[in-house]
């Protein structure tokens, strides 16, 4: 009997992924194509980032994908000098939160954007990236 295919695409997300299987696995395939995507509820138009498969507003599960585009305002950020187990080789790195108005995106600042150049309130964009270890992620860059 043929082995059942397991869709574990999400294990490719970030330096270390702690999740392998999710209904939002298409997020990974979009990242491969260079797109960072959120979801929108087709029933009540609620917008979600990070993407959700189920709507907590109307409790329906009828979602469509939308692309995170344009720029978001940098709400806050922090550069880590110590990291958790598994992230040592990435250090130092800067985590941040961008406000796109209808939704926010949490992620990392691109390595080519120095910490000293960052200020709360500046506009940044979100771009998909392939990490040195082959994993997929996204980073914040200058527009």
């Amino acid at each position: 009997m043929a082995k059942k295919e397991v869709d574990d695409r999400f294990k490719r997300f970030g330096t270390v992924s702690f999740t392998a299987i999710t209904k939002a696995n298409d997020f990974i395939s979009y990242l491969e194509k260079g797109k960072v995507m959120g979801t929108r509820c087709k029933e009540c138009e609620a917008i979600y980032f990070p993407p959700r498969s189920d709507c907590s507003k109307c409790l329906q599960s009828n979602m469509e994908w939308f692309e995170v585009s344009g720029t978001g305002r940098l709400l806050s950020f922090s550069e880590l000098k110590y990291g958790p187990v598994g992230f040592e080789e990435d250090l130092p790195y800067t985590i941040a939160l961008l406000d796109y108005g209808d939704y926010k995106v949490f992620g990392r600042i691109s390595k080519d954007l120095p910490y000293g150049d960052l200020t709360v309130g500046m506009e940044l964009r979100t771009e998909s990236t392939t990490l040195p270890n082959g994993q997929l992620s996204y980073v914040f860059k200058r527009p």
Partner: protein
Amino acid sequence: MEKVGIIGVGQSSFVRGYPGSIRELAFEGFKEAMEDAKIHTKDIGASIIASAPEYDKQRSPAGVIAEYLGLVPQPTFYIESICSSSSMALRVAYSMIKAGLHDVIAIVGFQKMSEISSGESQERMGRGADIQWESPFGTMMPAYYAMYAKAHMAEYGTGEEDLAKIRVKAATYGQINEKAVYRKPVTLEMFADPESTMSATVAKPLRVGDCCANADGSSCIIVASEEKAKALCDKPVWILGLGAASETVNMAGRDLLTGLKVAIEAGKQAYAMAGVTPKDIDVAEVHDCFTIAEMMAYENLGFAKPGEGKDLIGSKETYKEGSIPVNVDGGLLSKGHPIGATGGSQIRTIVLQLRGEAGEMQVKDPEIGLVHNIGGVGLYGNVTILGR
């Protein structure tokens, strides 16, 4: 309305590398609370065991600990909301007593953080956030709180030295608390000295001195119905108000980065239930896992207006002699933060203060005290108001 009273409090010393197992650690806090309450294990109707999971290998620690404490065959179960686990357990115990299910309940909080390495500990704590969407970026607790610090600085002009002053205060009292893990003084000069460990950056703008001390420890709170409390205890401390709230786990869901919404909400509930205002609080324990957390607590609980927390610490109003003494036991910063034991330890401090038994740390004649205990990065919040 029938009240619920606290009739016994205890905690182990908070230490690095406790030389025993989790059941033996839990015994230390329990024994002290039982001796304080002067009751026998048969007087206890149920026990609630509180800790954050994944620090030790024991699955379902409630059974093992209840057995070791001599609390079998009474019902026992486990409650967790990470760092606010034992405050959440107090909330559950309160409701069980009010419902008439039991008239005496023991809440035992514990954590043996030294079972794992510091890096592993950061990874565990980081996984108290959103493991699907955020942990893959390499998040950890200090970095999340650092983002709050950065936002607070950008919005209100709060400085790194304002935060350092909170650690200096904590260390002032950590030195006189014999149960604290960190007993040494900390000065502003140490924060400015590149040679000092205190000044080393963890996650900008937070430095080692801004971060609480990991520790092993246990705490125990024994609560009773009004009738039992009056019969068993000369100086019961009453639970006047309880508040609890939750917030989105994902930072992308947050719309306030200069304060914790769970603290604001839980505080409102607790003040309303107790029928008091922030001005009525004589002594407080707040969840200073990081210096910025205490700064935000001042503002979220109404001790200072938003952005004015720096003036409160600057004028030393939160010192023992000030208008609103906060964390005069050393706080999580110096006393230490054994996750599941922390809420119980905070409650113990306020109970001792209200009974006038806090020794060198005693605040002058307090009548009403407050405990602010947060789980995760403002993910869970509990505020408890106690009175004589």
